[in-house]
């Protein structure tokens, strides 16, 4: 595992020089039923040759729209309504569709966000690389294209390319597909590569390897990179220059480290304060100076993660003496998976996992996809039966709890899931959604239920008027608050949070984490927090269990895991947190 790459290394052969891409006063609007709605409003930026520039912003900030405007890949309803995009002296906004074809791929490469949906499922990998080479005049159809495609895939870091290019996308992992897409993007050695959140769909260690490789390839060829991301830490680590976008406008731009250490615009300040990977470093810094700065900046008062974390530490100390709320002993879950033909083979998803959670504290299960952490959550919630092992909740063995007792136990244990869009029924209004557990468990009459719903809305800081709105009228953060309110409806003692903040923008994520912290101390809740994001763990958890391939490889208190990780895998995970290598000025 490599160390975080410094932003400029001595081996960097980039020719930093003349401007390659100049966007001037770009305006992009979307046609909606209410008329043209501006998505990008007067964006200007300059990218020099050999340079990497990152556009940072939350979803809806216009960062992707700006990037896609460059090669006119905008969705049908969007239209460039003003400004110019100079690439190598040519205004791309004035080119015809035919002229653009010779720019796309050949001069400007593109690496898309989601590796799962960006390769055509019905064509072999090799075919999709070869057609790119042929279309851009880099190879002759046939053997020549095949040989060059192998070279492209090998340089993108795909081992055994000659064999694997005969396979189809669904036979590739997400990381492998992203390598293929990077290979395709760079196959014609373009002058500019647009990378739109190229690794957000991947595990953190895979992300690191892929981005390191991308940095190496673009450095070797002197390719400029326009990097789009929502992750400030990642952006600062990978780009020399940052452009922060908010609601279609550039709010701040400048050299990465400078911008992070001394953000000027209130929005950038909030972003820096909320970025979990960066904020965790603030914990080591002087807390008083941070508090003082927050006093000056009223906007960030509602997302003071440092303070929440401190309160947590104080609270955790007092809770240590309490008996465990959840105790898991030698938990094992074996699935039978089909291995083609009629056979199936056992797959151990969870392998002798043991841990316990003290009442009123938070234990985080951390691991990459496929590590078995979500299976543990399902077993603890009794949504699935373990193959062997014991789960004891408040002194009751889950496996022997049935009927009425089980129902009573379920009331005390509630889940919050990852997807704030998928986990709310679109046909239920917010009031009905939150009241549903009350109705299902026959708690109180209609009037009491209604009162409880309003109380819950208040607890999760949502306005009462939302009660008769529907999920599609709410933002992602609001929806996740609704999901939390629903989980709290039955006054549970234990809440299982399965990637509950992973799908949220960083500022919203910070708010939800702060809310969870407040609710915990207020209601004395016990959390089992499942996540792939170690940076978030530090802010919310008292104890951490690091899972890999179904086993817990390291279990300790949060500070121990972060300050003194014992296992190599934990160290790798920690090193892979984007922006971990950047020190912020206090």
């Amino acid at each position, binding site marked *: 595992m490599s160390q975080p790459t410094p932003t400029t290394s001595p081996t960097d052969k980039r020719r930093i020089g003349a401007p390659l891409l100049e966007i001037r006063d770009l305006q992009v609007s979307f046609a909606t039923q209410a008329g043209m709605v501006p998505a990008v409003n007067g964006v200007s930026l300059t990218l020099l040759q050999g340079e990497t520039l990152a556009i940072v912003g939350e979803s809806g900030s216009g960062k992707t729209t700006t990037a896609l405007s460059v090669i006119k890949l905008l969705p049908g309803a969007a239209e460039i309504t003003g400004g110019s995009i100079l690439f190598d002296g040519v205004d791309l906004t004035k080119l015809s569709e035919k002229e653009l*074809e010779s720019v796309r791929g050949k001069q400007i490469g593109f690496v898309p966000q989601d590796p799962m*949906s960006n390769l055509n499922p019905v064509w072999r990998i090799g075919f999709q690389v070869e057609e790119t080479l042929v279309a851009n005049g880099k190879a002759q159809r046939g053997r020549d294209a095949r040989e060059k495609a192998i070279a492209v895939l090998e340089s993108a870091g795909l081992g055994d390319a000659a064999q694997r290019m005969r396979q189809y996308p669904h036979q590739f992992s997400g990381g492998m597909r992203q390598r293929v897409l990077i290979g395709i993007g760079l196959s014609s050695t373009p002058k500019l590569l647009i990378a739109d959140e190229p690794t957000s769909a991947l595990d953190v260690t895979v992300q690191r390897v892929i981005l390191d490789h991308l940095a190496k390839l673009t450095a070797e060829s002197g390719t400029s990179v326009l990097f789009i991301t929502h992750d400030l830490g990642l952006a600062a680590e990978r780009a020399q220059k940052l452009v922060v976008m908010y609601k279609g406008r550039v709010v701040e731009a400048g050299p990465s480290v400078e911008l992070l250490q001394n953000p000027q615009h209130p929005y950038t300040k909030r972003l820096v304060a909320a970025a979990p990977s960066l904020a965790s470093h603030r914990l080591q810094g002087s807390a008083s100076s941070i508090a003082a700065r927050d006093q000056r900046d009223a906007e960030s008062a509602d997302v003071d993660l440092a303070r929440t974390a401190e309160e947590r530490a104080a609270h955790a100390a007092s809770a240590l003496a309490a008996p465990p709320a959840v105790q898991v002993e030698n938990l094992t879950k074996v699935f039978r998976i089909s291995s083609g033909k009629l056979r199936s083979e056992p797959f151990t998803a969870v392998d002798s996992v043991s841990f316990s959670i003290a009442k009123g504290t938070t234990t985080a299960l951390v691991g990459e996809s496929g590590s078995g952490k979500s299976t543990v959550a399902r077993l603890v919630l009794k949504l699935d039966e373990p193959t062997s092992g014991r789960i004891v909740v408040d002194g009751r063995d889950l496996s022997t709890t049935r009927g009425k007792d089980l129902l009573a136990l379920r009331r005390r244990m509630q889940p919050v899931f990852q997807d704030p869009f998928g986990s709310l029924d679109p046909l239920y209004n917010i009031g009905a959604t939150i009241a549903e557990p009350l109705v299902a468990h026959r708690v109180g009459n209609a009037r009491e239920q209604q009162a409880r719903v309003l109380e819950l809305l208040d607890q999760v800081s949502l306005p009462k008027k939302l009660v008769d709105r529907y999920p599609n009228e709410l933002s992602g953060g609001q929806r996740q608050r609704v999901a939390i309110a629903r989980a709290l409806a039955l006054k549970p003692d234990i809440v299982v949070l399965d990637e509950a903040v992973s799908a949220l923008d960083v500022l919203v994520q910070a708010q939800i984490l702060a809310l969870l912290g407040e609710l915990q101390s207020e209601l004395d809740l016990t959390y089992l927090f499942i996540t792939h994001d170690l940076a978030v763990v530090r802010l919310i958890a008292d104890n951490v269990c690091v899972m890999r391939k179904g086993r817990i490889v390291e279990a300790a208190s949060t500070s121990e895991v972060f300050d003194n990780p014992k296992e190599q895998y934990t160290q790798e995970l920690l090193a892979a947190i984007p922006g971990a290598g950047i020190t912020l000025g206090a």
Partner: protein
Amino acid sequence: MLWYILRRVLQVIPVFLGATLLIYFMVFALPGDPIAALGGDRGLNPAVADAIRARYHLDQPFFIQYLYYLQGIFTGDLGTTFSGQKVSDILGRTLPVTFRLAVMAIIIEAIVGILIGLVAGLRKNGVFDTVSLLLSLVLISMPIFVLAFLAQFVFGIKLGWARTTVSGDAPLNELILPAFVLAFFVVANVIRLTRTSVIENLDADFVRTATAKGLSRPRIIRVHVLRNSLIPVVTLIGTDFGLLIVGATVTEGIFNVPGVGNTLFKAIILSEAPTVVSFVTVFVIVYLLSNLLVDVLYAFLDPRIRYGK
């Protein structure tokens, strides 16, 4: 791939047995005694009636009779009609005609449906799209006999381009008009499905990536939009094949095509049980085979199915 096909073939067996059992049971459950009916008003000598019953295994329990019936299917003995012709001979004569008609109709349906659907999808909400929508609605809402009489009148009588009826050996050129009628009866669904599928795929991420790769528009449409859009369309067209063979009855009647539909229609009117049962059995087999063909084509078009679990 081979495993996939083998599994599909194996799945055909229980469906075949279930369907034939059902057909046989329904005939068995029909009221009336065919043997007693043979004697007319005078009635049969009981000894003769018993002999006939024994000959046709009618004295055996239901399930044994069914097994004899299955044996007949597999040995090609489908019984005889009241006029003494072998049912297998009639099928041998009429099935190829209907098959030819259905294949022609399917080809017309596929070409016309996919072309119109593709253009409509590419020019979503344009003039062409709107006109094709209106045309599809007209076709969907028109009963097939109206379509057939209209075609006969316009192309056969007014323009004189084609004969209004088909002669005994049903040559290809005489089948063109009924084939078009059959095709237009089912083409609207292909147009609509192709259009929807094309629009969906035009918005797919991999099409955007293909554009970013620098591919030309025609290549993107052909390789990345059309190919992917055809997967659901093939399923529809495949099941239409079964539908056209079985459902050609009305069209064959109007154009006097000597196919299975026409023959079956006459057999039903005359209550010729052996003919009806045999024909329906053949229809079941045709349906099963055309569905099998669809599954195989599906796997050919979509590698996720070919290599999937």
